[in-house]
């Protein structure tokens, strides 16, 4: 079935959207201020997972070049200044680049990782400010249930 095929090949998107909607529902409908913030955290985490899953490639590894790609230890380095470090001849940067061969499909796409570093930080910052506001509200109103706070505002008028 087409639906089954859509589900299995793109299951990652389905999962993340469902988690996002759970978070969004908590943000809108819960009465307790802290529960809303937990919903916000779930929502933002699902967005982060969504982005990272875009950059996955079949059979790839982390987006860092292999050690022996950037420090070729044997073969075509013909510096005679062998300082006795074993195979560490310190070839120059140009030589390494000239002999470098990188297969793009070996490495995961680095761009979503970079974007999500930023998004994680922004999420933490917003959560921190939200919790500080919640603490101040508790200090001022004595409750963190939204309906109780609105009642106390109405009765204080």
């Amino acid at each position, binding site marked *: 079935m087409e639906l089954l095929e859509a589900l299995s090949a793109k299951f990652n998107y389905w999962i993340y959207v469902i988690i996002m909607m759970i978070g969004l529902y908590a943000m*809108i409908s819960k009465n307790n201020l802290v529960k809303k913030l937990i919903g916000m955290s779930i929502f933002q985490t699902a967005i982060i997972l969504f982005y990272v899953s875009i950059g996955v490639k079949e059979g790839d590894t982390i987006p860092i070049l292999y050690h022996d790609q950037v420090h070729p230890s044997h073969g075509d380095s013909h510096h005679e200044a062998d300082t006795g470090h074993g195979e560490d001849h310190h070839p120059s940067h140009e030589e390494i680049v000239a002999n470098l061969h990188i297969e793009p499909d070996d490495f995961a796409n680095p761009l979503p990782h970079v974007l999500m570093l930023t998004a994680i930080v922004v999420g933490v910052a917003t959560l921190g400010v939200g919790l500080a506001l919640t603490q101040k509200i508790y200090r001022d109103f004595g409750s963190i249930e939204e309906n109780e706070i609105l009642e106390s505002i109405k009765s204080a008028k």
Partner: protein
Amino acid sequence: MKSFALIAVVLTGWLLLSAVSDFPDWGDTESPANDYRLSQHYITETFPETSVPNMVTAVLADYRGYDTMFETVVIFVAGIAIMSILRRKPLDHLKDKGKETRTYKKDPDLIIDTTCRLMIPIIQLFALYVVAHGHHSPGGGFQGGVIFGASFILLALSRDLQAAQRWVPEKRVLNLAGIGILIYSGFGFACMLLGSNFLDYEILHKIMPATPIEARSHSMLGVEIGVAFTCTAIMFSIYSNLASNGDMKETL
């Protein structure tokens, strides 16, 4: 309210999923995002252009360094915001001038205290390693800064807030955070003063003993150190403000 929320959530979910049939499959190497010249350039040209093997750090600190600077500012803003919302001077009768008092917490538990005393220096050493090796292994300024800040939080948890504040009193925290961002923008302004654009590290080879490409690598390390300073300071500041409810006297 709940039924309205449910309808809104279902509608949004349906909207988001309606495009899924158009998306590339999981793990597709030919997808537009993976195939486009942007990612290809980042994967193949990072090492020739910046001599840094870790592509994520290179993109973060060099190609999109402007974005990262503002990310650091976000952390800084969060710290200042929480401080400005919550912080209050303790009431007069609770103020003890000039006396380091530990009367707010019971005596530290022996097992926890000993374990943390052994762990904390190792955690800090590891944090420094993560910052310094951001070019060659997963790591960088944010990660290392958070780990370092966590070591202070561990100290505050195992003993009490005063013990941790002897290492990072409030004034020093703010200074550290500000100096971190000044280091980052200092690199940028140095580039501007030497005649190039903001954050164009290549021009810094005139004041560094390195080739233009290596100057990029060294500047990346410099800005990552700035980011680590800010992260450390603000992590601890957020913890101390939230946990002590603004008083800075006692925590959980």
